[in-house]
Every structure is written in C-alpha cells, then in structure tokens.
C-alpha cells in the first residue's frame, strides 16, 4: 500500500477569455513511505502543478489523489486536518516571512503537529544550523541557510510526505547537492516519503530511489534511478540525459533536442513527443500510448 497515489490526474488552469490549459493531462504516480521519488522534466511540463495539486493548492479537474487511503481535499480557509503532507517551495527568499523570527516560523510547524516537547532550536540543529539562529530574521541568512530553515519548518509538522518543488534551483551550485542530500536524509530518517521535483537530473540522480520523467503533462517513464540512468528507454529520457554536459574536460558539446516544448493549450495529436522524436512511427502520430512504465510505442507491453 503506497503512501501517496496519484491516479490519472488531470489539472486544468482556467482563465477568462482564454482556452483552458491542461497542465497535467492524465498522470499517475505513487510514493511509498520512506521512498524518494524524483520528478523531472523541462520547464512548463506540469511538474509544479502536479506537486501543488498533491498538496491541495490546485483544484483537480479529473482523476484522484489519495494520501494514506484518504482523498486529498482542496486547501481552503477552514482548518486542515490533513497535515501529513508538507511542502518546501522553490524560492526561500519568498517562502519565509521576512518580519518574523526564524524560530517562530519553525514553531508554527510544531504547533501544527501539536508537539510541545521539541523546540525550534532542535529542528535547526537537525538541518545543520546553530541553535541560536532561532532568534534571527530571514534576511540574515544566505539562500542555502534559508532553504534549510524552510526544510526545518516543513519537518516540524512531522509530515509523512514531504514535497520539494524545485527546492534547490534557487541555490548556488555549491549548496545544491548538500541541501538535496539533507532533504533525503531527513525524510528517510523520519520514515516519510519524499517527492522531489527538479529539472536538474544530476541532483535527482544523487538522491532519488525512483525517477519519474514528465513531458507535457504526462509521465513518460518511471523506473529505478540506476536503471533509468544506465538504460533510459523513452526517447525523451534519452535526449534529456544526453543534454547534460559532463565536467570531464573533454570539450564535448552536449547533444541538442530539436524543437521546443509544444503549447499545452494545443498538444500534438497522438504521442505528445512525436514532433521531436527521432524514432517517430505512423502509430505515434495517430494514437497516444497510455501504458507504463514507459509510455512509448517502441516499448509496448505485450
């Protein structure tokens, strides 16, 4: 029984006078307790929308999200009972309140979990910051430190599922892998699941047990990290991995994936990747492959 299961989820963004944008178009995903799932894809493919829907921040158009056997309800003005899901946002400069002490903000999380024993300083210690930082304001910290504070705040609520929505992309290269590792260690130690969203495959590879690759609102490939990395099967995953430049000093330019991500208002007929796919066949243009773990006609299950 998985902790979180997203089943055929559809999320549409509607704005007056414009056609509805189907940001997530039938995505299915599961996260088990103590498991780290990395969700990767180009910008605009719907990964953040998926994460926000899981948190109840975006209304669901169709499909279902269940957390621990209970459906996830939209986040509204009423007090929420479902505090088992906590999120760490992309930009720690915007997600912390600049006018409140760091300790008070972490204490909000503790209050959510009705935890009267732990002090905010304990949590700061767990994310690798000195205890006395609780009495400071967010502007006194660097990006990496702020993101650690945001993680401490999320952990304070004792989540069983932690979601990181591009939690490292606003940080320096030197802080990125540290913060990513910290999130993994803390989540796994607490026995919580972690859904880690990033467009940086090299970091996801470092921390995730499983990788889900998303393209234009659909998950095109899911698999164990090592397997996907060593033997990517979907042409899109192959292209993504090939585009990463290697710091080997050889001067090899990364391979380019021709074309741009199509407009999600008007996705291509058939397989969504077919206009950019090097192995496109007739069946790809007409019919969308709706099976897993590799949604590609080349890997049709028999």
């Amino acid at each position, binding site marked *: 029984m998985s902790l979180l299961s997203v089943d055929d989820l559809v999320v549409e963004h509607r704005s007056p006078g414009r056609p509805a944008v189907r940001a997530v178009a039938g995505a299915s995903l599961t996260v088990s307790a103590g498991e780290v799932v990395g969700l990767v894809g*180009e*910008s605009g493919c719907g990964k953040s929308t998926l994460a926000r829907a899981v948190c109840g921040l975006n209304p669901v158009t169709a499909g279902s999200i269940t957390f621990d056997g209970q459906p996830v309800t939209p986040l509204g003005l009423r007090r929420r009972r479902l505090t088992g899901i906590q999120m760490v946002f992309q930009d720690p400069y915007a997600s912390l309140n600049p006018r409140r002490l760091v300790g008070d903000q972490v204490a909000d999380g503790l209050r959510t979990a009705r935890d009267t024993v732990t002090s905010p300083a304990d949590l700061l210690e767990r994310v690798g910051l000195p205890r006395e930082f609780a009495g400071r304001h967010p502007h006194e910290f660097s990006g990496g430190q702020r993101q650690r504070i945001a993680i401490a705040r999320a952990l304070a609520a004792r989540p069983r599922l932690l979601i990181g929505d591009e939690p490292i992309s606003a940080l*320096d*290269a*030197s802080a*990125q*892998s540290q913060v*990513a590792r910290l999130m993994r260690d803390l989540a796994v130690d607490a026995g919580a699941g972690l859904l880690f969203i990033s*467009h*940086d*495959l*090299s*970091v996801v*590879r*470092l921390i995730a047990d499983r990788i889900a690759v998303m393209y234009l609102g659909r998950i095109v490939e899911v698999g164990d990290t090592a397997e996907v*990395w*060593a*033997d*990517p099967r979907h042409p899109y995953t*192959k*292209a*993504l*991995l*090939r*585009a*990463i*430049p*290697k*710091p*080997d*000093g*050889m*001067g*090899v*330019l*990364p*391979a*380019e*994936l*021709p074309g*741009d*991500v199509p407009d999600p208002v008007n996705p291509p007929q058939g397989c969504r990747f077919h206009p950019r796919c*090097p192995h496109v066949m007739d069946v790809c243009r007409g019919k969308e492959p709706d099976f897993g773990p590799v949604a590609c006609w080349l890997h049709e299950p028999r």
Partner: protein
Amino acid sequence: MTLEISGLKVSIGGKEILRGVDLGLAAGRVHGLAGESGSGKTMTGLAVLGLLPHGARASGTVRLGERDLLALPAKELNRVRGGEVAMVFQDPATSLHPMLTIGRQLTEHMRHHLRLGRTEAKERAVELLGKVRIPGPAQAYGRFPHQFSGGMRQRIAIAIALACSPKVLIADEPTTALDVTVQAGVLRLLRGLCDELGLAVLLVTHDLGVMSAVADEVSVMKDGLVVESGPRGRVLREPAHAYTRSLLGSLPGAGTAEPGGPGDPGGPGAGPAPEGER
C-alpha cells in the same frame, strides 16, 4: 590577446571584491571563469564594461588593443560598449525590454554605433536572427519578447550582442536560467559563433559541465583572486589547486559512471561536436 585584464582590483565601500585579477582573452577562444557565487566572477565581467555598481572603485588595467578601458572617459567607453565589447546576461526575461519589439532592440545600437540606415539595419537584424536560428526571422523581427520561449529569448539576446560585430563577448551565466535541453542548443550556438566569427568569449558560469563543454581555457576564482588558470583538459582533469579539486568533488555523481551510456553524441542535424583537445 584581444582583451587583457591585469591586476584588476575592485572595492565597494572599503571592501575588496576583486584582489588583483589577471585574465587574457584571445580571438576565437572561449575563456571560462568558474567559482562559487560571491567569488567575483560577475564583477570581473562588469568591470570590463564599466558597469560596476555605484560607489565601486576599480584599479588595474583592462587592455583592449591600445586602450585601457578603465581609464577611458565615459563618452569613449560608450563607443566600446555594445560596439567592440558586448555582453549577454543571465536572465533573458529581464535583459530584454518587454515593451519594445525584438527588431527595435536589435537595430537601435546598430544605427547608433554603425550609423546604419533603417532598411540596412533591418536587413542585418533579420540576417542575425537567422544566424542564431530563430525560425521565421522576418516575422520574428516585429514580435515582442513575451512571444518567445526562454531559449529563444536568450538566442535573441545573443543576436543583439553580436549586432555590431564585437571583438569580445562577455557571457554572464548565459544558460543558468535555461533547461538542459535548451542549454545544449545555446552552448552549441555560442561555440559555433566563436569559431565562425573569431570572437573572444569570456564565459562566466558556475557549472563545470558547461565549462567543460565549451571553454578552451578555464580560470577558477575564489574570494576575488584567480587561483588556477590553464587549458580546459588540464584544469578539469588534473586540477593543481585544492579549491578546484573541491569544486569538482562537490559535483553530484563525481567519480561515478558516466550518464547517458554509449549513445550517439551528435544526433541528426546537430552541429559539429568537437572531440578532445582543441
């Protein structure tokens, strides 16, 4: 050397940001400048063009041909900026003017620096858009930045920088805001333009993978000083300085199996993939 920076020191409010930087850029070569944020990479790029923030004091020399850019009066520096030395910034969403068409932004400095007429400037602009591989350059000329994707915008920013045939291009984290797939295209473009037009490029980036892909020489900065400098292959494979080693060691997946597997690195329609030492 097309551009030679020697003993460049910059201080802001009594605090020394750069403490004597020496760099040389040669025509047709990409010089990579690596280091973590706060090490002074960006400041070095800005100092060359006299774009330092208010209250900053710069000393040392930045030689472009016979002239010292740091000692030039503002009026003459204006002739160099955008003309002989051009710059590409990190975020194309903020470096392009949202309310002017691409064409207007591409021709403005050409008309000023090269004294071109309206039609000549337009012809050249369309040609440049084609060169940076914008589909339908003639139609793109009249569009606004918001009508393009991030990768396209960065290509346009590069086209703007190249408009007056500069000798030196300073690219400050040109691909950091882009996805890996888009980054690959922009890097290929930069490398191709450098080889084709004989540009001297200063590529400021924190991504050693990017550095390895396009740079010929690599310099590593720490706390306002260049700690290591040399050919790409040597610096990235046999780093002499402990700091370079620690930078390489902090990369995710350092020292483990190569990603991607044995795939064809070029692929159909891809540009030339330079192999090995250049």
